[in-house]
C-alpha cells in the first residue's frame, strides 16, 4: 500500500512515448464518432431538417437586417458596404463551425455537471474534453456556415476580387483559427462551472458580445477596440483575418497573428479545463 502512489508512475511516462500512437487512436475514434453522429442524425431526419431550416431562417433575417441597414449607407467610417458584408460573413462561418462541432461544450453546466453526466465521462479511458465535444455534433447549426459562405462570396464578387488557390487555402486556415478562438473563449467560460454553480449566464453574455466581431473594430471607440483585441480576442475571429483579402497594409501583422492568438488561447483554455476537471465535485447520488 505505501508504495502504491508512485509505483505506477513509470507507466505514465511510457504513455507519453506513445503520443503518436495515441493521436492515431483518437483520429480513428473521431471517425467512428462522426459516422455514428451522421447515422443518428439521419435517423431523425425531420429533426435535423426543421432545426436546419429554422436556423437558416434566423440567419437570413439577420442578414436581411444588415442588408437593409446598408441600402442607403454605401460607406461606414471608411469601410465599403461589401467589405463589411465580407467581415460579417467571415464571422458567421467561423461561429457556425464552432456551433456545429463544439456546441455540446455549452451543455456542460446543465447536462453534465448538474445532471451528473460528467461522472460517466470520467469513467472512460479518454480525454474528457474530447468526449464532451464529440458526444453530440449539431449538424443543423451548419446553416450558419452556409449563410456566412454565401455572404463572403457575394461580397467578393461585388468587390470584383478573384482569389487564387493560395488565398483560398490561407483563408481556410484563418477561418479555422478564428473558430479555435471561439472554442478557447467558450472553453474557459464553461470551465468556470467546475468551480461556481453558474448556470451559463456568463456564456450568454459572451454570446451576445459576439455581435461586436461582425463589424470592423475601427468603428468602435478605443476602449472597446482594446478589449476586443487583447482581452476577449473577438477582433481576431473575423475582422483581422479578413484583412488578408480586404488588404489594408496596416493590418498585415494582425492577419498572421490570428493563428498565434488561436494557439495561445487554446492552450490556455485547455489548461483551465484541466484545472477545472480536477476541481470537479460530483453531485450527490
Amino acid at each position, binding site marked *: 500500500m505505501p508504495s502504491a502512489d508512485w509505483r*505506477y508512475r513509470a507507466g505514465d511516462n511510457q504513455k507519453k512515448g506513445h503520443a503518436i500512437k495515441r493521436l492515431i487512436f483518437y483520429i480513428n475514434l473521431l471517425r467512428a464518432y462522426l459516422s*455514428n453522429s451522421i447515422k443518428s442524425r439521419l435517423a431523425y431526419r425531420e429533426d435535423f431538417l426543421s432545426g436546419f431550416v429554422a436556423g437558416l431562417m434566423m440567419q437570413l433575417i439577420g442578414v436581411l437586417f444588415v442588408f437593409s441597414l446598408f441600402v442607403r449607407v454605401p460607406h461606414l467610417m471608411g469601410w465599403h458596404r461589401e467589405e463589411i458584408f465580407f467581415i460579417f460573413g467571415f464571422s458567421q462561418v467561423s461561429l457556425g463551425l464552432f456551433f456545429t462541432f463544439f456546441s455540446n461544450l455549452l451543455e456542460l453546466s446543465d447536462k453534465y455537471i448538474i445532471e451528473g453526466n460528467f*461522472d460517466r465521462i470520467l469513467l472512460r479511458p479518454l480525454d474528457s474534453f474530447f468526449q464532451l465535444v464529440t*458526444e453530440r455534433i449539431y449538424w443543423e447549426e451548419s446553416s450558419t456556415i452556409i449563410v456566412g459562405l454565401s455572404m463572403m462570396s457575394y461580397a467578393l464578387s461585388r468587390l470584383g476580387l478573384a482569389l487564387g488557390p493560395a488565398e483560398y487555402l490561407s483563408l481556410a486556415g484563418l477561418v479555422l483559427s478564428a473558430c479555435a478562438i471561439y472554442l478557447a473563449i467558450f472553453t474557459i467560460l464553461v470551465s468556470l462551472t467546475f468551480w461556481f454553480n453558474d448556470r451559463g449566464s456568463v456564456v450568454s453574455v459572451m454570446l451576445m458580445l459576439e455581435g461586436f466581431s461582425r463589424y470592423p473594430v475601427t468603428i468602435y471607440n478605443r476602449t472597446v477596440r482594446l478589449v476586443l483585441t487583447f482581452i476577449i480576442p473577438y477582433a481576431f475571429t473575423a475582422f483581422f483575418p479578413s484583412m488578408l483579402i480586404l488588404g489594408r497594409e496596416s493590418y498585415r501583422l494582425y492577419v498572421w497573428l490570428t493563428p498565434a492568438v488561436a494557439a495561445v488561447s487554446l492552450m490556455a483554455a485547455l489548461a483551465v479545463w484541466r484545472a477545472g476537471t*480536477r476541481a*470537479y465535485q460530483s453531485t450527490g447520488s
Partner: protein
Amino acid sequence: MPIIEAANLAKHFRTFRRRSGLWGSFKDLVNRKYETVRAVDGVSFAIEPGEMVGYIGANGAGKSTTIKMLTGILVPTSGRVAVRGLVPHRQRYQHVKQIGVVFGQRTQLWWDIAVIEALRLLQRIYEVPKADFEARLKKFEEVLGLGDLLNIPVRKLSLGQRMRCDLAASLLHNPPVLFLDEPTIGLDIAVKASVRDFIREINREYGTTVILTTHDLSDIERLCRRVIMIDRGRLIYDGELKSLKEQAVGARRLVVDFVLPVDRAGLQRALEGCPVELEGGGPFRWEISFRRGQANAPEIIGLLMSRLEVRDLELEEPRIEEVVREVYRRERAG
C-alpha cells in the same frame, strides 16, 4: 494481497448554508458561512480478489461518495485509496481500464445510437481485440438475452433492457473489478433475477471482484457473503453477512396455523416457560416471535405440536432490513 484498499479515506465537502429571504441572499453574497460536510470520514477496508461485497448504508451515508473515490471520479480529501495498486484519481486512464461501472439510474451508453454501435465504440475505446469482443458479445447475448436488443437505439430501451445492455457494456473489456451502484433499481422481479444470476456467473467464471451498493437488500442476500456498512461517513460494520444476522438480536418469527381456534391465554399456557411474544389476532393463525438465545425454534415447535393441533407452520428468519435497522439503532444510541 487485497485488490482494493482504502485507508482512512475521507471526503469533505465545503458547502455554505444559504440564508433565507432576500436579505439573506444579500448577506450570502458578502459573507458566506461555510460548513464542512464529512461525507466520508475516515473509512478503511480491504477487499480480496474475487470477493463480492455489499456496501450498504442509508441515503446520504456516504456510499456513493466512497464509490466515486474508488472509481476515480472524486479526489479524496485525505487518506489513501488503491485499486490493484493504482491510485484512481491520479492514474485515471489506467485505472478506468481495469474497472467496470454500472449506475442503475444512468446509462453509460450513448443515447442516440443502437446498442451494437455503442458496444463497438466501447470496443475501440477499451482496445478490446476483435476475437475477445465477439466471444464476450456472444456470451452476453446468451446469458443476458441481448439478441433482439442489439439493433435498437439506447433511448428506446426499457429500463430492464437498458440495464442488461449496461451490464454487458461494463464488462466488455473483462475488468477485474466491477462496481455496481443500485443495479436492480426499478427492475421487475424476473429481470432482477437474471441480472443477479449474471453477476454471480461473471464472478464465478472470471473471478471478477464485485462491489455492490443497493437499497434492495435482497440483492445483497443473493450475491454477497460480506457486507460493509457505513453510516454518516463512518464504517459501522465490516464482516460476514451471516454473522451480522446472528449478531443482531433481531426477532425470528414463527407463523403457525391451527386446526382449531386458539385464544391468547390458551397459547400462552401451551408455551409456558418460553419467553415469546404473540402477535396477530388469531384465532386460527398466530405469529410467535422470539429472540435468538432466549428461546429456540425446535423447543417452541415441540411444545406446540404436543399440546395443540397444528396445521402448518413457517419459520421466518430476521429480514435483513430489520437487521440493518437494528445495527443502525445500536450505533446511533452508542
